[in-house]
């Protein structure tokens, strides 16, 4: 699916240079479920941003589906991103002014899909995450777990091959957290590649592989023993 080769990211302010990522080499196969762990400030989010093409590396290569996207500009990245990558955030990032179905539909608006097909796909994915009965509700009328399910639906409605989840359970209580994790697991079983940043070892256990980051380096990679 993707391959990071000697990838570094340096942030510069007026006086200080901070290396957020330092010669990172990671390979993720299609259909994998990978967890990224590490203490705060270790570079997890930067890594996820670069994988999600919301940020560009300072040096190194990023091969995404056989293409080196590291030198690409915003317009090209935006195109690849909308085709292949879905996002789930800790704070859900739903749009307050749009209803549940409109929030989900937003992901299809930039794909030139006819309205009738959009409605069908949104209905289908709402069924899948069990939020159909809330279709007309506004985000503020939903619980945190429900909101995150909407966010998951939005991430997959465009048939994205890969989902990037940034602490998807961080704002949820344990019951709702587990619900979301099970949803991700079932998506993975259907073939979606999932890359997830998490603080929770329990939730990391849903992944088949865990990458530990520390100070911008990959420290260890463990495969889960039993499937």
């Amino acid at each position, binding site marked *: 699916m993707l391959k990071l080769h000697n990838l570094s990211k340096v942030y510069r302010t007026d006086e200080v240079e901070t290396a957020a990522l330092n010669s990172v080499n990671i390979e993720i196969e299609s259909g994998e479920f990978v967890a990224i762990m590490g203490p705060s400030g270790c570079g997890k989010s930067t890594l996820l941003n670069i994988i999600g093409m919301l940020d560009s590396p300072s040096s190194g290569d990023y091969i995404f589906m056989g293409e080196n996207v590291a030198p690409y500009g*915003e317009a090209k990245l935006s195109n690849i991103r*909308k085709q292949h990558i879905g996002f789930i*955030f800790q704070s859900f*990032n739903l*749009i307050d*002014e749009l209803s549940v179905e409109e929030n989900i539909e937003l*992901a299809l*608006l930039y*794909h030139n899909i006819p309205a009738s097909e959009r409605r069908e796909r949104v209905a289908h994915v709402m069924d899948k995450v069990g939020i159909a009965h809330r279709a007309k509700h506004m985000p503020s009328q939903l619980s945190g777990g429900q909101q995150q399910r909407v966010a998951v639906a939005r991430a997959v409605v465009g048939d994205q091959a890969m989902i990037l989840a940034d602490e998807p359970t961080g704002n949820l209580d344990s019951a709702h957290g587990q619900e979301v994790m099970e949803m991700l697991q079932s998506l993975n079983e259907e073939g979606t590649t999932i890359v997830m940043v998490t603080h929770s070892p329990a939730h990391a256990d849903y992944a088949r592989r865990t990458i530990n980051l520390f100070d911008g380096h990959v420290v260890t990679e463990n495969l889960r023993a039993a499937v």
Partner: protein
Amino acid sequence: MFENYLKIAIRNLMRNKLFSFINIAGLAVGLAAFILITLFVRDEFSWDSHWTRSSDIYRLENTYTRPGQPDRESPNAVDPLKDIFFDTFREVEDITRYFDAGMTVRNNGELFGQRTLFADANFFDFFSMRFLEGNAANAFATQSNVVISQRTAEKYFAGSSALGEVISVRIGDEFRDFVVSGVVASPKENSIVVHDFILPFNREYFVGARWFTEDWRFAIRQTFVRFAPGTDMSLIRAELPAIVDRHLPKGQDGMETGRDWSMTLSLVPIEGVHLYGNGENGDADVLYGFLAVAVLILLIAVVNFLNLSMARTAHRAREVSMRKVLGANRSQILQQFLGESVLLALVSLMIALALVELALPYYNAFLSSLVQMNLLEDPALLAALLALGIGVGLSAGSMHATYFALLRPRDVLYSNTSPDAGTTRLRAGLVVAQFSISVALMIIAFFVNQQTEYARQLDLGFSADNLIVVSGTNGSQSETFKQRLLASPFVEAVGRSSDVPTEGSEDRLHIRPLDGGEPVMLDGLPTGPDFFSVYRIPLLAGRYLTDAEADILRKREENASYRPDANIVINAMAAKLLGFETPDAAVGQIMPTDLSSTLRVNATIVGVVEDFHFDSARDVIRPGIYYIDQMRQSDMTVRINGGNRDAAINSVEQAWRETFPDTLLSYRVMEDMVEQQYQSEARLSDVLLMFTILAVTISCMGLYGLASFTAERRTKEIGIRKVLGARLGDILKLLLWQFSKPILLANLLAWPAAFYFLNDWLNGFAYRIELDLLPFASIGAAALAIGWMTVIGHAYLVARANPIKALRHE
């Protein structure tokens, strides 16, 4: 997609009702003001553009020049110029002229005053107008035809066809009959050609008058020249001085011909005559001033919009980021937000148009204008307004649309810091810009108002109230008329002169000072003995003129001639100019005075009066000399009893009817004549005041919106400060200071700009006020106070809030 944009735009509007209201209302008010002003300016610039081939038509004007004197600008041209133009320029296609006069008309035994054009035969070929009855070809079939306008037809022949009706016009001493040969559409309000009553020009009517001859001293007829299309006017204009050189007669007798004076010719495009022509009351500079105010107000409204939109960026950054994550590219984001603000601008435009429609009657009354807005009949206006709305929307939305297009989603979606940190300074800058304009407008409006008041209260040197000026009193019956007036209990005094104050004098007399130096030039005014008492002009030394034989320079009689010696009165300025230390020193002095280069009189100064304004109050007072010339006393000034004005005017009318039964009384009120001189400034002052109030209001709306926004955003900070011990007063001070800074800075920018502008403007006045610092400071303080009043409500609420609540806010 569009539906989605629309939906989210509307929901955002509904969600932030205060912001939305301020945004839309501010822009609507700004647009309405802009539209009102530009409609008026457009109206003023649209004069006489309705004539066929109007862009090829020019009015030929004469300006008389004499060294050391103000030019005398005539709207007319002398008669010989018509043939000269045809001979000189191949490009001249046609020339038409008319003599514009107020005549007395008799219809069914009743007398009417009637503005009349004595027009050349080709008038209706030259000026295309619609004939409701009759036709252009037969309009002037005979010399006793008259063409009238629709409104004139209604005035005289209401309800029936006017064609073939007879109407009498007093020409010379007799009434002549004219047959109506055509009725044309009423003249447009925005035209200098007031074609209500058009007679064929006939030189016989004016036999005896020196007008309409080859005499270059009398420019009597308005003269319009049509040039071939594409004529290079700069080449034509370059020839004009040579025409004067070649054709202006130069005699030996100085004043009588072109030796002591000369003339310049000008060709004014007919579309510009109202604004730039000689003797017209349009003032292009004032219009440009209006236009500048309009643009500034629109700018304030747009800045308001920019500022409030920028204040809301934080709120919508999440939406934009999410859209980008989901694949929106920059141009899509740009489109969305530009589209949104264009939509808002168009909504504002609709409201503005409604406001304009509501305000127009009051606005027209205020400006005594006839501005109209007929969008359906005026596609150009409609298109211009639409373009205005879209343009305003695009510029008002440009800043936050660009900001959003460049926004990086990771900055918003992953971070806790507010995404708009970078825009705070920008927004403060916009407030500075807005208040700079507002403060500058306030200062300018204040001083323009002060100057207008100052000019109004300027001591004219005479008392203008309760004076009525009756013209046309030069005839033999005038003494009878005067006695009848004085018999009325409502008339206090009657004075006579050839001209009256505000009109200026055209006589220039030369006197050699006692020390034998160069002759000085004085403005001469033929008066009667009673002139000074009617105008209440104080005597400084000696005495006023009387009816005594020696005081009369020329008597009213057949073949009257000037006395070789006569008594005169001068003003204080003339006394000083002639070298007298005091007014008393001048009394009794005999001065050789040149009435013209061939007429010398030994004048004895018998009195010196206080200086008084005779020209416009905008000009400086000039040295003057006053003498009795009974042949030149066409104006009679009547001082009436102010207690019963209507009765007084009635008694003047009655005295006139008894004395001159065949002519109509024409009179003017001196107070109006004085006021007329300030009209242009007064109008500027009023408009400026009105629109300054608007500008300040819009600025405050913006500030109010911003304050509510800031209050919301600083809630947490203020909570922390309060937990750390800050008191209500400290917090209020903190918040007020935040809004004081941009206003203070705005003052710093506004003061020099206003000073520079005002100083320049005031230099155009002979008597002007000085620019004190105090009003600047007061207005600055007022702006600050207005700003405080605007924000204090929010500041107080935030400062008073329970800190616990504030800290849970996040």
